[in-house]
């Protein structure tokens, strides 16, 4: 087995992890503010179809990606209106958003099925991409990969060190106290939800612009739900999202490699492997954790100010 082979495997693992990282990091921010948005899959599909349409007409991957972000935010705004404006049950509103997104994306994209465009170019960073062994692997990705890593770093910094991040966490843990301190609970939560929508939309755009560059109804195939699970897996810690996504993507690709190598294990078992690995990792992390999880205390609870 050559180093070219391992680089190819690593590049495939990274490519399959990116949509999960993007969607999960957005959902993580929303959940840290107390908003459980189960509509990730629906926002992702809308981002996917609008991203594809935008790129198809403009010819620009960047404009496509921005269209995807906008579509995800529009969907998130709808969710915000329901849950923050009207204090509708978050679980019901999120599920409805997913179903709505599945239907609407099919309708919007009806005339774009079967069209294709070239995938997003892989950026070539001078010097870095030419490094032996790791150069192509780490610095030969398309732009989405760098955005994903940048977003994770930004979110990690924001939640930990910034004043606004502190406010957001306060709103997620104890909205009543935050409100008493004069924080705009609804406004902060809406911004967090919109950020989550933007990330989910970008993740969808990645699917139709870089990963499998065409549109077909339902092409996210459940990745939004995996992203939701990853947030829990990561115990609401940003860098653990990357770890979880790489673990899940790695298990997915390695089971495909194992099958193609003719390793004689039942393929159904191999297909279940990524889920098994993720669950096992979750259990192990919980066993060795001695400090409490970062689960936002007010996650999923609507907040209505008394005044």
């Amino acid at each position, binding site marked *: 087995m050559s180093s070219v*082979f391992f680089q*190819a*495997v690593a590049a*495939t693992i990274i490519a*399959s992890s990116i*949509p999960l990282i993007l969607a999960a990091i957005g959902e993580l921010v929303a959940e840290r503010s107390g908003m459980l948005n189960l509509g990730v899959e629906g926002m992702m599909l809308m981002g996917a179809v609008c991203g594809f349409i935008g790129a198809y007409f403009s010819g620009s991957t960047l404009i496509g990606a921005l269209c995807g972000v906008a579509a995800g935010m529009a969907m998130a705004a709808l969710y915000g209106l329901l849950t923050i404006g009207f204090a509708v*049950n978050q*679980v*019901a509103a999120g*599920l*409805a958003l997913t*179903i709505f997104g599945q*239907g609407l994306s*099919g309708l919007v994209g*009806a005339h774009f*099925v*079967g069209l*294709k465009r070239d*995938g997003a170019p892989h950026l070539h960073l001078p010097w870095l991409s030419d490094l032996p062994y790791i150069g192509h692997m780490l610095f030969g990705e398309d732009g989405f990969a760098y955005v994903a890593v940048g977003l994770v770093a930004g979110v990690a910094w924001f939640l930990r060190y910034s004043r606004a991040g502190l406010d957001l966490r306060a709103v997620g843990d104890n909205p009543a106290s935050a409100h008493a301190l004069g924080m705009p609970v609804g406004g902060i939560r809406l911004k967090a939800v919109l950020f989550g929508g933007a990330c989910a939309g970008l993740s969808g755009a990645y*699917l139709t612009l870089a*990963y*499998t*560059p*065409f549109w*077909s*109804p*339902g*092409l996210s*195939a*459940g*990745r939004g739900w995996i992203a939701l699970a990853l947030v829990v897996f990561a115990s609401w810690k940003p860098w653990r999202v990357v770890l979880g996504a790489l673990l899940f993507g790695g298990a*997915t*690709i390695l089971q*495909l*490699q194992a*099958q*193609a*190598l*003719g390793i*004689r294990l*039942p*393929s*159904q078992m191999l*297909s279940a492997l990524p889920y098994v690995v993720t669950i096992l990792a979750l259990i192990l992390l919980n066993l060795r954790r001695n400090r409490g999880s970062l689960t936002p205390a007010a996650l999923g609870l609507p907040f209505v100010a008394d005044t």
Partner: protein
Amino acid sequence: MTNLSRRNLLTGAASLGLGASIIGTASAATKLKAAFVYVGPVGDFGYSYQHDQGRLEMQKALGDKVETSFLESVPEAGSEQTFAQLARSGHDLIFGTSFGYMDPMVKVSKQYPKVKFEHATGYKRTPNLSTYSAKFHEGRYVIGQIAGKMTKNNTIGYIAAFPIPEVVSGINAFMLGAQSVNPGIKLKIIWANVWFDPGKEADAAKVLLSQGCDIICQHTDSAAPLQVVEKAGKHGFGQSSDMARFAPKAILTSIVDHWGGYYIKRTQAVLDGTWKSTDTWGGMDLDMVRMAPFTNMPDNVKAMAVATSAAIKADKLNPFHGPIVKQDGTIAAKAGDVVADKDILSMNWYVKGIDDKLPS
């Protein structure tokens, strides 16, 4: 929390669509009314799309004599109500195109004995319920031969959906075709365990390429694997419909489901009053399986593919002609014999030369 589930909502949506179609067709009492029920969206450019192309071809051929309508994305679980409503609302002929509609259609056909039902890919019949399916494996024999000729390192990748007889017989037919022109061929099989997940299908194609396959064959529904081989400068085949648009340089041909001829024949039979409950399993001979144009290959390979297709169409060549030896060394068909249809329809073994264990 409300009991909002996807199934309820979709069923609701399907009944709404149904209401609309009943209103739309109420005026035409003298025409034969035929309805089609699809499991996926007609815009999938795959399985349901091809059925709808068949409907359109039938409508065009029979013109004023028939009025067609369709319901798309009807989930299998709630389909009994859908079929009953179609039967109640004056449809004379109802086609259900997914395997999972089988039991609902059997039940509804008994409740409405005057309505004719046609079920694709099933095996249960009643006096007013026929079954039909296509011998897709015939196309796989042809593409197996092409792959056997075109491969440079004798290693071919195969992305399979589920270990059901249709897929298993497809793999065997492909391998037999490949072995007939290239005895040293190696097949690497990945079971995706999905029909449609573009991301996973693309990953499977990348994995097969990384392990040295230079031709990728797929028995899953999306065009994603073809796009991967196009980018890598290798070759592949389309599934269900002509997928050339997705990979103009990589595609060698596609196996195309063609239902129009069958739909014309069966609808005409109802018009003539000669319709009977039957089972049809047609291949290239009945024009139910077609090959898309052979492209991106040398002329001699193309000539071979054309000749093989013609021989299958004329019933001169059966992909499962003997001698066929199973993977475990037992004989499946002696020289001069063929594997019986019923054994193909329940196939759960590999032919010799396939280095994979069949998931069971």
